[in-house]
């Protein structure tokens, strides 16, 4: 067990704006953590630093005990990342795309095709596996991007708005999928849909103006604010800041 993500005093500036402002937190192995916050609060920026997309201006992030910027090769192999805009090459077939991702994530040749087959099965992509990604519907594209994150069987999954742009049926399916996939894995997901977070996650991290306002279990938070809706907690914690 123990902690899979350890962030210490992480700050990211864009010009003079502090998108993430000296944030420290830890994520325990096996947890499903929801990252909440208003638009522009710094959720994507934080996720991009955890996944090694760009380095923080100051502070350190360790994933699985390795500093993601000092030793990116080792750390990145163990992270699956679903970015907000889906990183699909339109002309590539789903299988070819997954083969490419498997190759750059250094999955050994003997395991490669089994991993691809399993991932396609678990994300429900069998019927479209030979089609080019650009021709798929939004729901399938989302699943291909999710399959890409899962291909290396990572310990840590970072999902930036995994149900965005899906229809209600697909949303339910994706939620089930994430819950099923979680198992031994650690999942950090961001979402605007609060009921979704309370359904999937055990813990939430609320971020606003680049600062983490609270990290707590969902049940604990609701007890603290004596409510049964996560919305109330969210509104009370974030509006205070936005109206200042």
């Amino acid at each position, binding site marked *: 067990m123990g902690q899979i993500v350890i962030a210490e005093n992480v700050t990211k500036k864009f010009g003079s704006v502090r998108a993430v402002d000296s944030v420290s937190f830890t994520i325990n192995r096996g947890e499903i953590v929801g990252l909440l916050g208003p638009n522009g609060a710094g959720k994507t920026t934080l996720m*991009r630093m955890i*996944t*090694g*997309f*760009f380095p923080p201006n100051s502070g350190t992030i360790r994933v699985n005990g390795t500093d993601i910027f000092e030793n*990116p*090769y*080792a750390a*990145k*192999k163990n*992270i699956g*990342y679903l*970015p907000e*805009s*889906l*990183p*699909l*090459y*339109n*002309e*590539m077939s789903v299988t*070819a795309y997954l083969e*490419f*991702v498997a*190759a*750059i*994530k*250094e999955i050994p040749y003997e395991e490669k095709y089994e991993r691809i087959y399993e991932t396609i099965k678990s994300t429900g992509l069998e019927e479209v596996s030979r089609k080019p990604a650009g021709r798929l519907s939004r729901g399938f594209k989302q699943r291909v991007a999710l399959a*890409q994150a899962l291909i290396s069987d990572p310990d840590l999954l970072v999902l930036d708005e995994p149900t965005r742009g899906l229809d209600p049926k697909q949303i339910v399916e994706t939620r089930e999928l994430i819950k099923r996939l979680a198992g031994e894995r650690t999942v950090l997901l961001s979402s605007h849909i609060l009921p979704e977070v309370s359904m999937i996650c055990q813990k939430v991290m609320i971020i606003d103006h680049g600062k983490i306002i609270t990290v707590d279990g969902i049940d604990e938070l609701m007890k603290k604010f004596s409510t049964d809706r996560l919305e109330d907690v969210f509104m009370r914690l974030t509006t205070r800041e936005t109206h200042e």
Partner: protein
Amino acid sequence: MNKILIIAKREIASYFVSPVAYIVIAVFLCLSGYFYYGSVIFAGQSGMEEVFYDMSVILMFLTPLITMRLIAEEKKLGTIELLYTAPVSLSEVILGKYLASVFLLAAMLVLTFPYPLVVAFYSQADWGPVFLGYAGVFLIGMTFLSVGIFGSSLTENQVIAAAVTFTGIFFLCAVGWLEALIGGKYLIYLSVLDNLEDFARGVLDTKNIAFYAGLIFTFLWLTVRRLEWKRW
């Protein structure tokens, strides 16, 4: 498999899935064939000097079309996020993409091999200059491509990438003209097209090779720096 080759393989596949590669190759063959016919067959010459010179001029115009999508498209589509967060270094990404464009260039040149073969069939071919001519065009093409990949890294708009690349290449080729304006006899050594005349005549100077290798390295290095410096 080596990461550079994985990236290159994907890039080559994407060239040949889209019409880009076929159109670029077709245009190159049409134009170079036209010049070949004019300066060799019609003029009844057996030397290919002019054809090699013309090929490089055609490459000036085609290179921006080959390289403009390499990085700009990844930025636009957001696929670059996948590469940044994968266990692969930026140098590997850039070298892989560069290699893919060099592969396309090599394919274009290989397809023109019938030109000297026809000459050899009808007359005594002088293979030395032909070999040097091809080496020269290849080297110059590689230099243009390195300018192009740098141009593509500057923006997420492919048209801007192509325009910047063309300007850069044109300047490299025309820097010799400045000589008339500011004097000095060194600029001519830098001018790509002036060098090519030497190549075509069968003079391959190690100084020239070093010069082009230096240019290629510089532009690839600048591309990596540029992407490290600004990630979006």
